């Protein structure tokens, strides 16, 4: 059973077993506008929680994507190189950024659930 959690950096984390898939939320893609470039981390890279490990560039701005939890990158979404628009079209589907093997499954528990994230977005006005 997959569990989806959220961060204050507007990333979603879907956990299946000990692998987490990471992407940006609908709110984030709306704020960014048309995404024109995505750089995903290399497989095998070990990332700490909060470490900048991917880049998303839109017509408005370039932003870092932070590892929401610690782990080792097991896959980057190679398709985004040719179709960065997937991030706008399906931010929580085809537009995922990378998958990582969790270093500590308990870290996920500290993230927001959907209701908490929705409240957080609302608080931003």
């Amino acid at each position, binding site marked *: 059973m997959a569990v989806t959690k959220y961060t204050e950096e507007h990333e979603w984390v879907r956990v299946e077993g000990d692998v987490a898939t990471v992407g940006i939320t609908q709110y984030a893609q709306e704020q960014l506008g*048309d995404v024109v470039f995505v750089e995903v981390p290399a497989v095998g890279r070990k990332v700490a929680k909060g470490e900048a490990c991917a880049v998303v560039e839109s017509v*408005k701005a*370039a932003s870092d994507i932070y590892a929401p939890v610690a782990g080792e990158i097991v896959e980057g979404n190679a398709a985004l190189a040719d179709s960065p628009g997937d991030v706008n079209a399906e931010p929580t589907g085809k537009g995922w950024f990378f998958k990582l093997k969790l270093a500590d499954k308990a870290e996920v528990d500290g993230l927001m659930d959907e209701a908490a994230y929705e409240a957080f977005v609302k608080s931003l006005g």
Partner: protein
Amino acid sequence: MVQSLDRSQGRAGGVAASAASNHGTFTGNRALQIEEPLIFEMGQPGRCGVDLPEPPKVKDRLNGLRRAGTIGLPGLSEPQVVQHYTRLSQKNYAIDMGVYPLGSCTMKHNPRINEKVARLAGIGDLHPLQPVSTVQGALELIDRLAHWLKTLTGMPAVAMSPAAGAHGEMCGMMAIAAALEAKGERAKRKVVLAPESAHGTNPATAAALGFTVKPIPANDRGRVDLAALKAALGPDVAAIMLTNPNTCGLFESEIVEISKAVHDAGAYFYCDGANFNAIVGRVRPGDLGIDCMHINLHKTFSTPHGGGGPGAGPVVLSAALAPYAPYPWIVKDGDKWRVAEDGAKVDGTPLGRLKAFHGQMGMFTRALAYIMSHGADGLKQVAEDAVLSANYVMAALKDVMSPAFEGPCMHEALFDDSFLKDTGVSTLDFAKAMIDEGYHPMTMYFPLVVHGAMLIEPTESQAKEDLDQFIGALRSLTERAKTGTAAEEFKAAPRFSPRRRLDETLAARKPILRWRPSNHPPGSDPMKQAAE
């Protein structure tokens, strides 16, 4: 921003073919606004603007490698070439044509006296490889400018050679890294702090030098959050990079305390001087406790820039950082000037060279002319008028647009997009509609800390009646947007420009980086085929 041909309206079908759908004229021209093809799409093969004598018959030494075919250059008469480039130049928007309110870029008037001085034969005809004995005046000019930059900033030293703002940042941060190295602290001080509103070059410079960047949040007044800064300072911090006035157009009112906290933590204070034009003659950054700062001569001191002239980014340095200034150093021995490039002959351990030759000589000349022609009182008035103009714009628009922060600003007026809420009009649409009104848009979506930001920097160059018309245009656009029924009209803007809304997303995703003749599709090499 990358832009590309808009092929839906453009010239894919040839100039005439695209014309009818474009503007409803046979030629595609719109009055005297000419639909200009690329030079490679013009002319006839074999036509030539000059009458050259036949080459003498000599045996070539090319051993059979002589090119037989043409190389695909367009054949044009001299009037065709002159008309083409003149028409292209008329498509450009320039500070010489009107208000250029691009915030953070400081597009101020380039006084013509600067140009006159830069064209004096003894300056304009200099060559960087001339013997030093023949360029004594030029070296003195560099030293004189250095003197005034040090005086205006209240700093003891300056490195003149950096070629632009970001280059100056690199120079200053390299000096900080060298100073840390000398103290044996380079390995443990790896973090550079930068406010969230920083120019993108700040974190980029720090990262390029191997530092880790930690962002510092702003408070609700648009200034650095001092408590957050103090919490982030520690034995691992190398420096803070801070712009003052900041990119929100606000003076960092707690800068003295910031500087004290940074120094107490053993770190250095890099000040980004991009907005020095707002305080020149009024505030000496050295008095605020900074360690180094670059000065964009092309902003504060009016030398031409923006898709045209080169920049120049001299860096003023504190006594602690001065020994690391890069070569060349202009030194006076007795009554002779020389260019010092030998570590044994200067007092310090310089970084080496960051640039060929001596820096941007043409910019030095213009900047010095600007300083000398204004004088101390004039420079002070430059800052005062720039701040007054920005506050005039802010005050005249604040009842209809939404200022990002309360209170007066410095040299630029920053608005967010909350006044466009529920109108269906975005910051981008608003900016495009300004083009139809005959105005270059302001900076938009920067700084990132402000939602839908619109950053207006009028500079001291514009007369009141010109600012009044600019304000009137923005008020009119705002009123139209707020009717709530104008979204489509705004989305269609600009309507009167040579090109309509460009597809920036497509241009960024699939840029067309070179033109190819229609009979040479991608992958083929016309040069090679011509030679065959």
